[in-house]
């Protein structure tokens, strides 16, 4: 085999130091296939070399956590022998190159992560970031990404039950597509990516291997330059139909006891999957690539090891069980091949037609993967924005109408109607609420799921922003009546080699850590996406949080729509005297035209106390509707509740300034009740501040006697923004 050069290594994204370390570990200069394996294992995407040091600081345990980060997905106990398994993952760069396929294969990848663990996926979620609405390519991205997500999830028959979408010019050249999947399994039927049993067969199943996305995972860690658009590497094409079959076949096989370990082939395909399984099991692997099903003739070992063809899995079976497994895959019309076996050498040996193409010590590569303590600089603190600096004095109803007519506060119906959010027959809260809710099949229990991020806050103050994203996810789960249990995170940032970007990353991690600890809301899985930059311009720091909560009795689920006329509307966690928090708020952006200022501070103990109060009221069936107050503030929240139910609200004339209605102070909810006495008594005894805001009635949102807007009008504004936007020619 020809030795590679320092130049080759550079083309593979390895630094000089990494090249030297590689040669030292191998004891010689590696060949091309070996270099490919090293570069795949050591790039940012697989090795987390810039982020590892900080990821280790995240809280990952709780009594209900069965498996934390490090596996294909995290696992939590949801009682009665049931487990929920979930993870979020990004497919940002592929989606920028080819929005439909990029988003589709992103969904495919996260589904595989979940069913690889033995779980049947029960819900999909996503978090999307697009450029400014007026940017010429934004519609193209929205269209492609939304139909790609729908195309894959709908065909697989897994409901997409919610998500979040934001537009901002910071994403003009670097959109974000994060997909989350939640599955369920029995706690004693969970499968891990660990190989064990010397001599046991290594089996390849699923679709054939082609030359798809070779160096895809290397691409995922490379900063974009304008000419990336013209380079256009081979993108992977998703085949949800094949994945559906792979899923059914794997779940059928997992009902037998023949599977020892299983891993999906995602980024860097066969390389990462075989390395990870061998490393976790402390064993060696010998692969015979001539037995591997290929789609194209004359594929080299280098190409086979690095191919990112989709819908493929690697398994270690118990000896003698190959035929039984083969029959199942044959029934589903899928390829099945024994491509190697486990050895006691601790080495990955890649052979083809008798010749050795790679011979590497697994632990050397895994244990010595680079880990950087990148220098970082704390983000400068922003000043607070106080109400006396505001110029605009228009009445709150006018501001409400203006704010609902924007990209970020309008209804997302246009998006989620393209997702089958009801298939599997367990969805009890559709997209558009505070969280998506799916019943655990054939039980009374339900899982609530949310995705959240507030990049504006994180940009202004990474630490407070990091706290806030976790608190918001927690609050959204509480608002539907679920007990929040755990999160998965997708950390989308710019180039970590820049100190200020690394500072954003570190700040957010510290904030997330603090919030997770106070809220008992550990991180059980996640993904990091760095180098989200174009031409040196980074995206806003976007640490997306996917939260999952449990509802023991799904009949107690809360929704945000008003339920009836003549019920009382309360603000929980706030008062007339509160100074509206305006820094980094949508009010400041949309009404004052300023994007600046310190984001709202999050009092995590208060957050917890208020949330637990809401849950206790729900247990007593005292609440008829509940909605958390987030971006846009109180009046936006009330408008959303009214629009959803087609029941209006008469709000009292409060002694407040117009901006009070739009402050983004944290730890607040809007609720309705028809039992004011019990509600107020409990609030007082629990030391929770509340404020009676008004009553549900009629077909208007009205403040006092004079300010009002009809529900029809706000519904038109809020409900039709997206349709209008997407129907305009780009």
């Amino acid at each position: 085999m020809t030795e590679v050069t320092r130049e080759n290594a550079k083309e593979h994204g390895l630094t000089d130091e990494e090249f030297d370390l590689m040669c030292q570990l191998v004891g010689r200069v590696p060949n091309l296939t070996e270099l490919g394996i090293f570069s795949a294992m050591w790039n940012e995407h697989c090795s987390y070399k810039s982020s590892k040091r900080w990821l280790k600081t995240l809280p990952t345990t709780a009594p209900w956590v069965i498996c934390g980060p490090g596996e294909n997905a995290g696992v939590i106990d949801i009682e009665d022998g049931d487990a929920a398994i979930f993870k979020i993952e990004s497919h940002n760069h592929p989606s920028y190159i080819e929005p439909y396929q990029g988003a589709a294969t992103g969904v495919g990848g996260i589904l595989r992560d979940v069913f690889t663990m033995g779980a049947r996926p029960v819900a999909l979620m996503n978090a999307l970031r697009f450029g400014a609405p007026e940017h010429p390519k934004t519609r193209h991205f929205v269209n492609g990404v939304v139909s790609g997500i729908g195309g894959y999830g709908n065909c697989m028959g897994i409901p997409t039950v919610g998500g979040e979408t934001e537009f901002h010019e910071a994403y003009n050249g670097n959109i974000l597509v994060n997909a989350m999947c939640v599955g369920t399994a029995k706690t004693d039927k969970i499968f891990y990516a660990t190989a064990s049993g010397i001599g046991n067969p290594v089996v390849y199943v699923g679709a054939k291997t082609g030359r798809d996305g070779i160096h895809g995972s290397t691409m995922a860690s490379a900063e974009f330059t304008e000419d990336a658009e013209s380079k256009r590497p081979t993108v992977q094409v998703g085949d949800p139909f094949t994945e559906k079959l792979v899923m059914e076949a794997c779940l059928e096989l997992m009902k037998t006891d023949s599977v020892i370990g299983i891993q999906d082939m995602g980024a860097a395909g066969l390389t990462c999957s075989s390395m990870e399984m061998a490393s976790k099991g402390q064993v060696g692997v010998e692969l015979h690539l001539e037995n591997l099903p290929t789609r194209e003739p004359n594929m080299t070992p280098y190409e086979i090891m690095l191919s990112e063809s989709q819908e493929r899995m690697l398994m270690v079976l118990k000896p003698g069980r190959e035929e039984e497994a083969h029959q199942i895959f044959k029934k589903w019309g899928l390829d099945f091949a024994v491509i190697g076996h486990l050895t006691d050498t601790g080495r990955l040996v890649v052979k083809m037609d008798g010749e050795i193409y790679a011979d590497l010590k697994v632990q050397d590569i895994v244990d010595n993967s680079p880990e950087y303590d990148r220098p970082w600089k704390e983000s400068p603190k922003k000043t607070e924005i106080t109400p006396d600096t505001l110029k605009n004095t228009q009445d709150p109803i006018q501001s409400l109408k203006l704010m609902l007519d924007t990209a970020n506060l309008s209804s997302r119906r246009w998006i989620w109607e393209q997702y089958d959010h009801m298939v599997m027959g367990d969805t009890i809260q559709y997209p558009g609420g505070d969280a998506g809710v799916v019943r655990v099949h054939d039980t009374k229990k339900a899982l609530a799921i949310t995705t959240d991020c507030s990049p504006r806050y994180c940009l202004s103050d990474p630490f407070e922003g990091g706290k806030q994203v976790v608190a918001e996810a927690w609050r959204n789960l509480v608002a539907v009546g679920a007990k929040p249990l755990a999160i998965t995170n997708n950390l989308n940032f710019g180039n970590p080699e820049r100190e200020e970007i690394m500072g954003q990353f570190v700040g957010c991690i510290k904030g997330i850590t603090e919030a997770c600890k106070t809220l008992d809301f550990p991180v059980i899985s996640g993904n990091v996406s760095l180098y989200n930059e174009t031409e040196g311009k980074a995206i806003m720091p976007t640490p997306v949080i996917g939260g999952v909560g449990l509802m023991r009795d799904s009949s107690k689920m809360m929704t945000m729509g008003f339920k009836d006329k003549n019920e009382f509307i309360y603000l929980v966690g706030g008062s007339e005297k509160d100074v509206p928090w305006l820094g980094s708020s949508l009010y400041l952006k949309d009404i004052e035209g300023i994007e600046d200022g310190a984001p709202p501070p999050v009092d995590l103990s208060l957050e917890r106390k208020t949330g637990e109060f809401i849950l206790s009221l729900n247990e007593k069936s005292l609440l008829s509707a509940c909605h958390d107050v987030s971006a846009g503030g109180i009046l936006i929240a009330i408008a959303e509740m009214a629009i959803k139910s087609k029941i209006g609200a008469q709000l009292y004339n409060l002694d407040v300034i117009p901006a009070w209605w739009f402050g983004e102070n944290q730890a607040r909810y809007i609720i309705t009740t028809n039992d004011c006495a019990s509600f107020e008594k409990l609030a007082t005894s629990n030391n929770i501040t509340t404020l009676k805001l008004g009553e549900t009635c009629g077909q208007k949102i009205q403040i006092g006697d004079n300010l009002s807007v009809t529900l029809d009008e706000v519904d038109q504004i809020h409900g039709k923004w997206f349709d209008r936007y997407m129907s305009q020619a780009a």
Partner: protein
Amino acid sequence: MKSAVIVFPGSNCDRDAYVAIRDVLGSEPEMAWHGDSSLEKKDLIIVPGGFSYGDYLRCGSMAANSPLMKEVIKQANEGTKIIGICNGFQILTETGLLPGTLMRNKGLKFICRQIHMRVENNTTSFTRKYADKQVIQVPVAHNEGNYVVEDDVLKSLQDNDQVAFRYCDESGTVNDDTNPNGATDNIAGVLNKNKNILALMPHPERALSKLFGSDDGRGVFESLMG
């Protein structure tokens, strides 16, 4: 009642159909694999929704050619009751058991939402629990639900009371605005001449309980109990 749900590669509402039969009709259906060549005589067969064969080529085209469909066609001709839902509707038109075909939605997008439809014939084994012209709420979730038939076939469907359901609004109005996918004559569900086959794009099996948004779909299954 002896029943079966046909499972194709890519079916994904097969479990929903199973649950509907189990919970409403009180008996477990056989889950019949498309590749089998025989099927015990049934009283009811559901061809479920989903993306059989990935919706490749034409929706339902490849499933219509699978071995077990020969048996389904035979039993249909012998009077077994058949319900085709969503992709099942597409499959049944591809087999020729029902006229017409399902084209891409007029909006060119997948749509998943609650819609209303009006019961146009409440004298069949699938609809007798409903009142005449009753408006019911059930969800749709499809990309190709635009039912297209030639004019003369449409006329014979109308003349023979073969239109089971039409898309409408809450108050029962049938017009272009209440047509989610562009279907000819707002047709949401059709029957064969003998009225032992019902095919519809909306999903009655997803509307069995108010917890899920509506329980108006129960009527289809309750009607089968006689």
